[in-house]
């Protein structure tokens, strides 16, 4: 196979990794302060985003290619993922800036871990080989395990990190087992190229599909865990609630982006020919996720737990696009990219209201926020309406996109179920709005410091994205139509 060595193919990952090294060096050897870490990280992320943009310009559509013996794919899919993941990491850093500032010198590790997670996430979208995907998954996940327990002093953060780590490691093992079974069935780990999985499956009739199907099932389970789809979601409320609020948004948003990138490439490309085998399973997971996520979110009294269950429901909504196979990938990207931004913004507000290092964020703390902090309340209300799928927000456009894809693929029952769940979901999104605007604060005003500049920037950017792509989603829809795998 053509090795096709090209620096540009790994450019974004290298840029982010160089950022990691630079930040750590700056802290350990040079003893430079936070301001420098910030600039270095920002530089690395801008470079990585720019390189992804360059890949987008050169390699999307018919110009897509594989590099490094098929290990790395550069196509519209991976470069779009880069253009989402790296800015998302930037938002995550800004949202968590006050948290990392409170951690003294350890803050440098925080910056480095976020960059590393972004690099891993990009590898998950760009891997052209199942082992490569697994390596990306591990780089990404291990960084997040550490970030989840970053405030070591708090017991529930430790608990969150430990839970995340144990269950996550288990899910990684399941994924790896799935990789092994797929290898056993097809004789290849490469997705592309002659003799690759896709090629093998399209040119061969399997008489005994059992091993392949078992492998596919295990891959689904492993990634279902990462994107917190029901019934593999049980970790998410505890982890979301326990982790320091400053980082929960990035944790939630990037996991969705990266997890769905892997799912989309593996399912629609490597296993694209057996769509009839996996689409019903994905539809079942989607149905279960929207129903369970919505019902459980209704019962929550803590904003972070509620958002955790709502993220389960959103995993289901995104999966409704996947049942359409290749036809739904653009819609999936639209949804997942805008959702990731919304979820970061929502957790940023939670961080300002309840403290960045704190875990819990009870809904009672939001009573009267509409009067106390009109700006924060307005952003959170916008995010709630968007997640609820109210028109003129990006959340609505995303729902139209994924549902349209599913209707085209003849999954009308799934769409109706998801729509009903979306209405039930409005109940808890509206409750946040009710509490903020229609209930007076109880007792003395809970004091919270105003939002820092980083948080402000995140909130402004997220609101702009949510409104702009809500009112005129067409430019982004045009872009994601090219964000397809090779």
């Amino acid at each position, binding site marked *: 196979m053509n090795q096709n060595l090209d620096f540009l193919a790994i450019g974004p990952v290298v840029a982010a990794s160089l950022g990691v090294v630079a930040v750590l060096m700056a802290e350990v050897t040079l003893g430079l302060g936070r301001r420098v870490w910030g600039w270095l990280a920002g530089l690395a992320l801008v470079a990585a985003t720019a390189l992804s943009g360059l890949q987008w310009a050169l390699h999307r559509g018919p110009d897509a290619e594989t590099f490094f013996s098929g290990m790395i794919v550069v196509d519209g899919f991976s470069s779009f993922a880069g253009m989402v993941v790296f800015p998302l990491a930037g938002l995550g850093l800004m949202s968590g800036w006050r948290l990392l500032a409170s951690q003294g010198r350890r803050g440098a590790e925080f910056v480095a871990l976020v960059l590393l997670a972004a690099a891993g996430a990009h590898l998950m979208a760009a891997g052209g080989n199942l082992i490569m995907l697994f390596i990306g998954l591990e780089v990404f996940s291990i960084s997040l395990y550490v970030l989840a327990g970053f405030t070591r002093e708090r017991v529930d953060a430790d608990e969150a990190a430990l839970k995340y780590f144990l269950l996550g490691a288990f899910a990684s093992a399941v994924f790896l087992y799935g990789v092994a079974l797929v290898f056993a069935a097809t004789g290849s780990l490469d997705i592309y190229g002659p003799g690759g999985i896709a090629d093998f499956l399209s040119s061969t009739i399997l008489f005994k599909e059992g091993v392949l199907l078992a492998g596919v099932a295990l891959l689904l389970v492993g990634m279902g865990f990462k994107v917190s789809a029901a019934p593999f979601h049980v970790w998410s409320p505890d982890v979301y609630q326990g982790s320091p609020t400053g980082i929960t948004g990035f944790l939630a948003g990037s996991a969705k982006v990266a997890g769905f990138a892997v799912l989309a490439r593996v399912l629609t490309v490597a296993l694209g020919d057996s769509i009839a085998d996996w689409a019903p399973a994905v539809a079942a997971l989607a149905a279960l996720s929207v129903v369970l996520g919505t019902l459980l979110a209704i019962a929550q009294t803590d904003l972070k737990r509620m958002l955790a269950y709502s993220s389960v429901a959103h995993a289901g909504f995104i999966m409704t696009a996947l049942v359409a196979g290749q036809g739904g990938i653009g819609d999936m990207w639209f949804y997942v990219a805008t959702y990731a931004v919304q979820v970061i913004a929502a957790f940023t507000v939670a961080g300002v209201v309840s403290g960045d290092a704190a875990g819990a964020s009870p809904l009672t703390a939001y009573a009267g926020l509409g009067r106390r902090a009109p700006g924060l309340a307005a952003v959170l209300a916008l995010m709630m309406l968007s997640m609820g799928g109210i028109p003129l927000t990006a959340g*609505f456009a995303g729902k139209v996109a994924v*549902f349209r894809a599913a209707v*085209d693929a003849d999954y009308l029952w799934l769409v109706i179920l998801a729509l009903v769940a979306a209405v039930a979901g409005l109940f808890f999104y*509206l409750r946040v709005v009710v509490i903020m*605007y229609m209930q007076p604060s109880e007792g003395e005003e809970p004091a919270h410091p105003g939002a820092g500049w980083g948080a402000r920037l995140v909130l402004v950017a997220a609101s702009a994205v949510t409104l702009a792509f809500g009112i005129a989603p067409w430019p982004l829809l045009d872009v994601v139509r090219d964000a397809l795998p090779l």
Partner: protein
Amino acid sequence: MPADFPILTTIVLLPVAGALAVLVLPRRRPELVLPVAIAASVLTLGGAGWLLWEFQTGEAGFQFVEKVTWYEPWGAGYHVGVDGISLLLVVLTAFLFPIALLASTAITDRIRQYAAAMLMLEAGILGVFVSLDLLVFFVFWEAMLVPMYFIIGIWGGSRRVYAAVKFFLYTALGSALMFAGILALAFLASDQLGRPTFDFVELLGIDLTRTAQFWLFAGFGLSFAIKVPLFPFHTWLPDAHVEAPTAGSVILAGVLLKLGAYGLLRFNLTLFPEASVGLVPVMAVLAVIGIIYGAVVAIVQSDVKRLVAYSSVSHLGFVVLGIFALTAQGLQGGVIQMVNHGLTTGALFLLVGMIYERRHTREISEFGGLGSVMPLYAGAFLFVAFASIGLPGLNGFVGEFLVLVGTYLSLPWYAVAAAFGVLLAAVYLLWAYQRMFTGPITVPANRDLPDLSFREAWVLIPMAAMILFLGIYPKPALDRIEPSVDVILQRIEQVTDYRVPEFGITEAGR
């Protein structure tokens, strides 16, 4: 103004501009808020007036059409236009909003947000009436819920949060199924046309199987039935109407409920004609139950605002009955009754709001003999009540008469049953009037209530003028409705074997 001036977009965007203007007003000058908001809504009314002036009476198709394709792969685009039916409702909306805002002086808390929410609501409602693209229609339909939700939930009565959430969830549930229907319709269209489309006019051209029509009718119909509200989907209405602030109730009863009936007329009848003809008995039965049930429940209310709220259920039953009578007279009556109900019930809610501002109660038993202390107010109340009952010479008569005549042609027994609704309306309204305004003053607190103020009088005078005008001379309105209604009936006759009955032609003589 040039002929191709995008007047419809302008009327939809004017209130939005007003809302933004209100929000950037200086915080220290709250007294400026209402005048600015009223100015914006009066400008919108001016636009609607121009529309009325330029509208070509007698033409059946859509006028002032604007059409842009936004996103080819989805078939999503912007398509607006009005025919005689939506024209009247646009004018009604633009007419009621300045009045509702003028009646909002009791609101002092967060007045800027309130005025902005009202104006956004106006934009949403106007958008629904002018959209000819189902996706755009749905966007307006859903987006309109948000300001109404805030108006009820923040500025409403004591159980406002409950009422607001109930209102929102009821409506959202209905629209979820409608949205599934819209997507399915676009998908079926892409099968037949080779590309998806949400354009209403293009969707009229596709063939739907009988089964598909029934399911789609159910999906759309449920959403509209909740909005109307048709019995048994009406339970959100009393709560929302009673808890909403006065202006909110006026808009809710005056325009929001019409959206449901308008949707049935515009989309269900034309897109799913076969299902419409087949489901006439179901819709007519529900409508008649609504007429009688709403009236009976209104009789026993002790809260006058609740009484008016239930009277809406009854009156809207007439509208739906007229629509599903599927006769020219019935449809015309249904449309004109929408306008009439907007005027009379809007005026009733205004009157109830005025007495509430004075006494902070709406219990009928708390009043009595008010006629001697507030003669003008009592006179206005009686006038509007007569219009609502359907006294000849006032507007209510025109609509109900046409509906009953139209229904008698196709569904005679339903007309007989519905006629009792007119009788019951006299019972609940006149009895309420008797208890509140006649006899001696029973409660000392009522002894020196002030009569209508200058501002209140000016809130009511335009309403009363329109009530009288449409009662005496409804021809201008009917002239505009008639061609549009005929188009709908012609379409039904073309695609189904239903024949519209007319006077002098009986079933046997056909």
